[in-house]
């Protein structure tokens, strides 16, 4: 069990900086997810923590120990790789026992730990098999087991679910979460999948181009994204963005889109008062746009808009509709009862209490 601290860490590969002044504190027993698009530096951060890459500058601490110059074997960590990286010439049992044998742990204890982990992961019947005789899901479990038996103070996972099929991924996702609750150890989990991040993390660190964008709980990331990148990255389908201007009129503040205007709820005016008269980016999530006939209770219906429906994607439990007004297209996540049909007109309600306003230059969130 240990906390983790990245302190102004830089990692360069030649001219390319994979981590730029990366600072991050992870509490003991936390399940921290590092998420971002490919090439954002999340895997590099994990590999630096594991000791598989040397940092260019800055310090990394595990517990109260600076680990910059400590080799991977002495960092008291275990890692699950994307490819699982099982030892192909060893049986499942030996794969799991390898790290313990190297540490000269007594045979009986090794046996006990391997059997215990195998039972936890339901792979007890596979212990004599070689990795090539296992399915993808089984290999994944062995890789987890190899980490569990070590009783490390930190678990590192590098996209461990990305090679599984969709169904198994959802199932294993829940099992890893359970594992975290059971082992009560710090987990650092790297993924590019925002669903995995949202469902598993106690906190999520969103990264882009080697820079930490925001570190917060899943709900806060969703409700209060710090900038347009985080707003667009978290949530599916992505948030709709429009260039707009804040204007004053009729005793209220309006968001002026050009072809149409929408009123800002009075409760949110204070936060954007400085930007009235200035260009901004307006953001609204697809789930905060409703069919005017099926508006959930409690939603203010004052922001109405007539739109043309371009595409309808029924998913059963909901319907994605691509609607537009005056060249401004947006995705709406509608009630499945919607009558929206391609090419027809649909009146929508935009829940302005859920709007997001970003500075046009810095793309930072204003509210």
């Amino acid at each position, binding site marked *: 069990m240990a906390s983790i601290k990245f302190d102004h860490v830089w990692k360069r590969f030649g001219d390319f900086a994979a981590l730029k002044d990366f600072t991050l504190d992870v509490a003991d027993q936390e399940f921290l997810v590092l998420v971002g698009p490919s090439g954002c530096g999340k895997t590099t951060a994990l590999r630096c923590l594991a000791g598989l890459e040397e940092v260019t500058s800055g310090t990394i601490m595990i517990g109260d120990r600076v680990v910059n110059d400590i080799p991977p074997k002495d960092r008291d960590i275990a*890692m699950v790789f994307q490819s699982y*990286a099982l030892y192909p010439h060893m049986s499942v049992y030996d794969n799991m026992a390898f*790290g313990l044998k190297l540490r000269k742990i007594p045979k009986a204890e090794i046996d006990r730990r391997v059997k215990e982990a195998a039972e936890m992961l339901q792979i007890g019947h596979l212990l004599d098999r070689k990795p090539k005789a296992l399915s993808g899901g089984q290999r994944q479990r062995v890789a987890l087991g190899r980490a569990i038996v070590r009783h490390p103070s930190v678990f590192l996972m590098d996209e461990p679910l990305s090679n599984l099929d969709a169904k198994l991924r959802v199932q294993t996702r829940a099992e890893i979460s359970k594992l975290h609750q059971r082992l009560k150890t710090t987990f650092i989990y790297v993924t590019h999948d925002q669903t995995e991040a949202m469902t598993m993390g106690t906190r999520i660190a969103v990264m882009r181009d080697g820079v930490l964008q925001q570190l917060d709980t899943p709900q806060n990331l969703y409700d209060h994204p710090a900038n347009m990148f985080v707003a667009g990255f978290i949530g599916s389908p992505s948030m709709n963005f429009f260039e707009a201007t804040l204007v004053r009129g009729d005793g209220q503040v309006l968001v002026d889109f050009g072809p149409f205007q929408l009123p800002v709820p009075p409760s949110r005016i204070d936060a954007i008062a400085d930007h009235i008269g200035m260009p901004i980016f307006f953001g609204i999530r697809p789930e905060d746009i409703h069919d005017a006939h099926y508006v959930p209770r409690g939603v203010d219906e004052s922001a109405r808009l007539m739109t043309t429906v371009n595409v309808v994607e029924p998913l059963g439990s909901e319907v994605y509709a691509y609607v537009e007004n005056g060249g401004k297209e947006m995705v709406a996540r509608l009630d499945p009862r919607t009558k929206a049909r391609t090419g027809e007109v649909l009146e929508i309600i935009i829940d302005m209490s859920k709007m997001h306003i970003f500075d046009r230059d810095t793309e930072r969130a204003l509210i």
Partner: protein
Amino acid sequence: MQQAETLSARPARRVRWMNRDRAIALLMIAPSALAIAVFVYGFIGWTAYISMTDWRGLAISTSFVGFDNYLTIFSTGRFQTNIRNLIVFTLFFLASCLVIGLLLAVLVDARIRFEGFFRSVYIFPMALSFIVTGVVWQWLFAPGNWPNDPTGINLLFKQSGLGFLQAAWTTDTNVVPGWRIEGLRTRIGIPMAMIPVVVAAVWQMSGFVMAMYLAGLRGIPDEIKEAARVDGATEWQVFRHITLPMLQPITLSAVIILGHISLKIFDLIITMTGGAPGNNTEVPGLYMYEITFKANKFAEGAAVAMVMLVVVALLVVPYLIYNRRTEVER
């Protein structure tokens, strides 16, 4: 039910064992299959047959004598010496090629500069014929009137102040330790003159082994080694427990390839030593040539050939079976 009856009542479509594709395929492989059947397996059979006749001299003779020729050659000191030499040569050649090849591969794999250059340098000797290698190394290992008027590497040693390293090389008649065993007509040990021959063979083939190991090393995913490091392995333990076992198939292939070259070795030795001194570097390949074509003992020569065939088969056949099995597993 009725439907099932009508189905089974329909005349079964005859499956022809010979269709057009198959006929063409057979036609295509027939010439080479026939040639191999006659010129390889046919002549092996012919040799096996000759080895059980009393054919000596130029006139062919086909009187059947059973295994007499085998008993004869195995009872001669010369053939026993050949076998001893072959064992010594094979063991030293294999071990040195594997160790040096692996060492070179690990060094070249360490992402050094000019890797391509070193790789080519080490593999290049393989492009030469054993005849060329034999001639060159014969010159190099010719001791001259050492220690005072040496030639070849003895001269190099002398001029670089390492005169104490001078040796008789290919002219050394010692067998170390040279034990005598009741019933054997040869001395057991390492014929010292064989050492230069081994050096030449290793010089030629270790680059090839390096290339094989290098391909093997490149085939081991970095993640597996990283997993081992995180699991607590030192660099040596990663090599010992991960890299080396994962190279095992390469080692096996190398042993088979080197082994069959070694057991049939002829050209290198005939140019380098011709079997001398005494018969200290003579191997069955040379002996077969000598008694067949110089002494005209065709039946005995055929017997030597059959012994060589069996020895090579002992090495290769298990490998082929193993390969087939692992292929089926895949």
